[in-house]
């Protein structure tokens, strides 16, 4: 019999592998001409999404950026409907009206993915305001990148959440680049946690490639939020293995940087830990990975079989 801890570990691994395989499949679909527009992938950052969402409870809400496939899947959105949305199919999460940058599944608390940098931070503040007004005990978590900490909405949201003691977790994924620009070029502080101090908000930095460390940091912030102690800022240090978007080969990276980070691939980090400390052997880890990849393949095939939306449906959902 597997213990509770082993079930948790295998679940964390499964989710991260699902997201990795999902993103790789989207990348292939793009080159096959099956996905239009653009897409922003998160390979390498899976531990932040999975670790953070693992610490949330039913009723909590999450908002994220246009690099949000991983976060939405980590909340439990179905793989096939996520594929369907990015493929622009009628059966997609948003009926084909949102696309890659707007994956949303309110039924699992994935309140939205937003394509304007920083715009979703006050939306999570608003969701937390509802929770506080109604005394539901829910919290809201918002993912954003290091680049978002230079936009006004970030500062207004941090300030308001703090002054109103709202149950918000500001989850910064510092992947070292804001689009194509290295952080040092755009941001005069090295540690983003100092930005929280000017809003009187506790802040912590965590290894964003260690899913357990992320989960534990978010769990501590969640305890604070639910105890009525207000918001927390978490900076997760991580790295994206791919360019900013479809058109970016990431030529701006210093030589060797990607390779160094790939040695700390969050999936490998967790797999090694499961073998070293969790009572798993290599075969068991490989089996979890293979099962997750097979689920992703099956979901992709399912979504590919779905029809395009009826053109008349474009008139629906403008107004309630």
């Amino acid at each position, binding site marked *: 019999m597997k213990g509770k801890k082993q079930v948790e570990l295998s679940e964390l691994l499964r989710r991260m592998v699902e997201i990795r395989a999902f993103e790789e499949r989207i990348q292939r679909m793009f080159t096959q001409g099956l996905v239009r527009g653009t897409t922003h992938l998160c390979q390498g950052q899976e531990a932040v999404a999975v670790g953070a969402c693992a610490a949330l409870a039913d009723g909590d809400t999450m*908002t994220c950026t246009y690099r949000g496939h991983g976060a939405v899947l980590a909340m439990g959105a179905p793989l096939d409907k996520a594929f369907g949305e990015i493929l622009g199919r009628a059966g997609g999460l948003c009926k*084909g009206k949102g696309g890659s940058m*707007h994956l949303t599944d309110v039924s699992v608390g994935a309140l939205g993915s937003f394509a304007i940098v920083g715009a979703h931070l*006050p939306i999570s503040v*608003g*969701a937390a305001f509802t929770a506080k007004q109604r005394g539901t005990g829910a919290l809201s978590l918002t993912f954003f990148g290091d680049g978002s900490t230079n936009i006004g909405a970030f500062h207004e949201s941090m*300030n308001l959440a703090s002054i*109103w003691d709202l149950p918000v977790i500001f989850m910064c994924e510092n992947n070292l680049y804001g689009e194509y620009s290295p952080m040092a070029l755009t941001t005069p502080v090295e540690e983003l946690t100092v930005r929280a101090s000017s809003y009187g908000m506790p802040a912590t930095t965590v290894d964003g490639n260690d899913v357990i460390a992320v989960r534990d940091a978010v769990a501590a912030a969640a305890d604070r939020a639910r105890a009525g102690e207000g918001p927390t800022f978490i900076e997760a240090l991580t790295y994206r293995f791919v360019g900013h978007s479809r058109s970016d080969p990431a030529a701006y990276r210093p030589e060797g940087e990607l390779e160094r980070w790939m040695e700390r691939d969050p999936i490998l980090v967790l797999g090694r830990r499961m073998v070293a400390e969790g009572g798993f052997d290599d075969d068991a880890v490989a089996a979890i990975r293979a099962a997750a990849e097979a689920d992703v393949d099956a979901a992709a095939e399912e979504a590919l079989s779905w029809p395009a939306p009826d053109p008349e449906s474009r008139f629906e959902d403008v107004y309630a």
Partner: protein
Amino acid sequence: MSEVTYREAINAALAAELESDADVVMIGEDVAAAGGVFKVTEGLQQRFGADRVRDTPISEQAIIGTALGAAVTGMRPVAEVMFADFAGVCFDGIANQLPKYRYMTGGQVSVPVTLRLVNGASTGFGAQHSQAVENWFLGISGLKICAPASPADAYGLLRSAIRDDNPVLFFEHKALYLRKGPLDPDVEVPLGAADVVRPGADVTIVATQLMRERALEAAEKLSAEGIEAEVIDPRTLVPFDFETVLRSIEKTGNLVVVEEGPGSGGWGSTLVARMAAEAFELFDSPPRLLGTDDTPTPFAAELEEAWLPDVGEIAGAARGMAVTA
């Protein structure tokens, strides 16, 4: 039926909705403890509590975003933008977030947000506190827009706006706050219905807010000359009640539209274009669009008054048509 000011009518509508629905909350800069810079929200925090009527920092992006996030999770927020000009600070929230959230999620959420924005010129606030900015938002699908002129319309439309499950921009004209008019709180005013404020058979004048007031004065002058103008207040700009205007043109054959703005790309030009396309044969004379001069709002009283369409200009445009016809 009691006589109340436009400001009192808005206050009463807010109080009525706060009273009838526990999910209604109000946020904005100095709306709570101070009762608003124009005293429109006076007494509401005392009556409904500091949890439901809340002062915010000077943070328009956070105000709009917080209202939006609260709305999609079940509240019915009313947020104030102290001067409508400040919508420029939170344009993203109004243009990209409020009207698109429902659509781009395939209808997973509804967005019952009412934004109250304090609009309009003639009070000497200068170029950044005097604009009537409703036309900034006309080309954005997914919003509803109200611009009431009378206390009764302000009351009824605000209650309808708050009860609506969609984002509504509710423009209050600051020059009208102390104007008095009758109010029957039992009369509902639905969004999207124009009002024929004054019947007449010779020329149709369409105007909102301060321009409606001036159009009515112009109509009285014309009446003394034997010309009867029909004055229509659309009240809601999105959705726009084109039908009521069309029926009036069928009767008068003449159309003057008066707008508090430079007239390019606004509801007035949209109305003229639509009527010309749909009912060209009904016109006895070319339709006219009167607007402000095409400059920023000037400060000095003489400059600002010269900049705004006045009663004489409105009467002159209408008279020219009625005489020609």
